[in-house]
């Protein structure tokens, strides 16, 4: 299970209003019995409990709709998060290996069917052993009838579809309890089928009132209620970009996740295969890297045009130009070549699989230093577009500060002030040289620091990824304990 899903499960569990599970289960049983007191037909009672479960969950989801916007907006992904749905609905975590997930291929359909089996069912725990367990499952005659977990199934279906509705997805999920322990079957099993909205509407037009035989009255909820838009559009946008599954993918396999996202972006926006897209840059790999630098600067400018506005002022443009030049010079001076080469290798790994093989081979011919130079060249072009005139800039900022007499003559009457003014450029030159000397002396410790942090992070990441023995496992244990203590305090 991914880290984000695990964390969310902990939060949901720790901050919900909990009672003892036995009380929950007995209350659930009593609700079914009260329904049955009215319907007197077992099949009808099951249908109505399922509908009550759906209504109850929907009501709860509507109260906390903001949370669900963080969930994945794809029906397959929603089902992959079934364990989280279970915790949202039931508040009880499943033991390791209790849930199995089987995909059934459905020819000619965009989505397959899914069978989710849970070995143990708290709702059915000990059912039939106490004299108050009066609802008799042996009286069920319809073989397709659901079991005791029908209410829970309704809740799960409702939460899953609420997520899809909030995420403006065009598909809905039908979850049906297929096996029930209280009915004498092995384990709890759900069949999940995915429908497009039109088919789903058709499916749900079969009114509950028409399905029940007892003639009892049940007010059916309307399936497609309008979700109120939140006023914070920016939050919506952020949630579209950062739903849990996307965060999870990035945390699990950062590079693979990014590669996948880039491939999706190229396919969606440019309607091209990634390899076809990268093929345009074959033999122009250096330009491709320059374009990355160029686009990065323009991307920053996209948000409110702040870069362009800032550079509209001539003085600011000059300052920014000098900082950029200094950064370009220092990046190669301060960052150790091994670190630069590591990032070069990362670029090769990124292109591998996305770009044509020949292109990957060409990039391999560059050094890390070349990459940095290309990136800065691209960025410089973008800054030129946005207002920095690099041709006007002096060799360095000190040259800019140094002022020389315009006519080049020496005054015959030199006061102390004028003498100081004369000497000022020389003082600046000395400062400049001293600073450059310090910079070069500092190169070594800074290179050590950069290398240390780079390799430190590298080693740490390699040791963190092991769930059991690595840092991640220990952090998980520690957070587990924190949530346990929170629950203790809340008690």
């Amino acid at each position: 299970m991914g880290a984000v899903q695990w964390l969310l499960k902990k939060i949901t569990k720790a901050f919900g209003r909990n009672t003892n599970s036995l009380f929950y289960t007995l209350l659930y049983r009593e609700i079914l019995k009260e329904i049955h007191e009215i319907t007197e037909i077992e099949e009808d009672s099951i249908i109505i409990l399922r509908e009550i479960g759906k209504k109850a969950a929907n009501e709860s989801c509507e109260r906390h709709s903001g949370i669900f916007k963080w969930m994945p907006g794809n029906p397959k992904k929603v089902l992959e998060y079934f364990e989280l749905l279970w915790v949202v609905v039931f508040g009880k975590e499943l033991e390791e290996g209790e849930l199995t997930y089987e995909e059934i291929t459905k020819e000619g359909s965009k989505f397959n069917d899914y069978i989710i089996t849970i070995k143990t069912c708290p709702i059915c725990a000990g059912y039939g052993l106490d004299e108050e367990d009066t609802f008799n499952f042996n009286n069920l005659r319809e073989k397709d009838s659901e079991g005791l977990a029908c209410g829970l199934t309704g809740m799960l279906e409702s939460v899953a579809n609420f997520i899809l509705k909030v995420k403006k997805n065009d598909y809905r999920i039908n979850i049906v309890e297929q096996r029930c322990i209280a009915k004498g079957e092995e384990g709890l099993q759900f069949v999940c089928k995915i429908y497009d909205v039109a088919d789903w509407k058709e499916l749900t037009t079969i009114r509950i009132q028409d399905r029940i035989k007892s003639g009892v009255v049940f007010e059916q909820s309307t399936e497609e209620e309008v979700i109120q838009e939140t006023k914070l559009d920016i939050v919506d946008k952020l949630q579209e970009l950062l739903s849990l599954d996307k965060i999870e993918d990035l945390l699990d396999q950062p590079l693979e996740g990014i590669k996948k996202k880039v491939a999706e972006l190229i396919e969606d926006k440019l309607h091209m295969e990634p390899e076809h897209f990268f093929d345009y840059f074959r033999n122009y790999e250096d330009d491709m890297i320059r374009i990355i630098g160029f686009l990065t600067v323009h991307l920053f400018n996209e948000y409110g045009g702040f870069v362009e506005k800032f550079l509209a002022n001539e003085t600011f443009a000059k300052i920014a130009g000098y900082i950029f030049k200094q950064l370009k010079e220092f990046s190669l001076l301060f960052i150790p070549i091994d670190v630069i080469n590591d990032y070069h290798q990362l670029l090769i790994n990124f292109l591998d699989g996305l770009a044509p093989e020949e292109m990957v081979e060409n990039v391999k011919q560059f050094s890390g230093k070349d990459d940095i130079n290309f990136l800065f060249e691209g960025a410089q072009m973008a800054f030129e577009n946005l207002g920095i005139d690099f041709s006007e800039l002096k060799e360095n900022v000190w040259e800019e500060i140094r002022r020389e007499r315009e006519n080049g003559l020496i005054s015959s009457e030199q006061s102390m002030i004028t003498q100081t003014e004369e000497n000022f450029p020389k003082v600046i030159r000395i400062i400049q040289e001293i600073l450059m000397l310090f910079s070069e002396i500092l190169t070594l410790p800074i290179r050590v620091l950069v290398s240390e942090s780079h390799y430190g992070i590298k080693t740490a990441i390699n040791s963190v990824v092991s769930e059991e023995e690595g840092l991640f496992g220990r952090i998980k244990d520690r957070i587990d304990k924190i949530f346990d203590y929170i629950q203790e305090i809340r008690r």
Partner: protein
Amino acid sequence: MNYSRTELLLSEATMNQMRNAIYHLQRFIKKNGVTEIRERMRRIGRNIAHTYIKYWKPIDIVNESNVKDVIATIYKNILNSHISIDIDNIDKKITIRDTDCPLCKYQFDDIDVAGCEIIIAMITEFINLINKKSKDSTPLSLEPINVEESRTFGSRVCIQHFRLIKGGN
């Protein structure tokens, strides 16, 4: 092998959806012409107590000296509620204030019976069942009076009243 009910005592479940389900049940009952909703809710509570006591009970006898602690223990262990209890020995009345009732949270204008009617019936039955089985000669019993205030009706707290009957069932 499925869980046993004894194993369920060791875990917790979130009430959010179940709490809503109680009120949808009430609406369903009302829609079908049944008027004694309060009695139905209390029956639920009594039935829960009957099964629950087979798996857990706080003590073997409830008397005047421990009734307050027994009630607090039941609320804590079953419902995860921290309550305040007042016993009026003159009127023989117990008043419980629960600021975080698991069955009442939101106000519903179409609901006349608070979810915690289930709780008062369960607590009463629990204590009466404990004492029914005890051989003590001076037991006490409880009787639910009413839910005076509930968050379901817009109050900030649920206030439940019980009648204390000394001298047995």
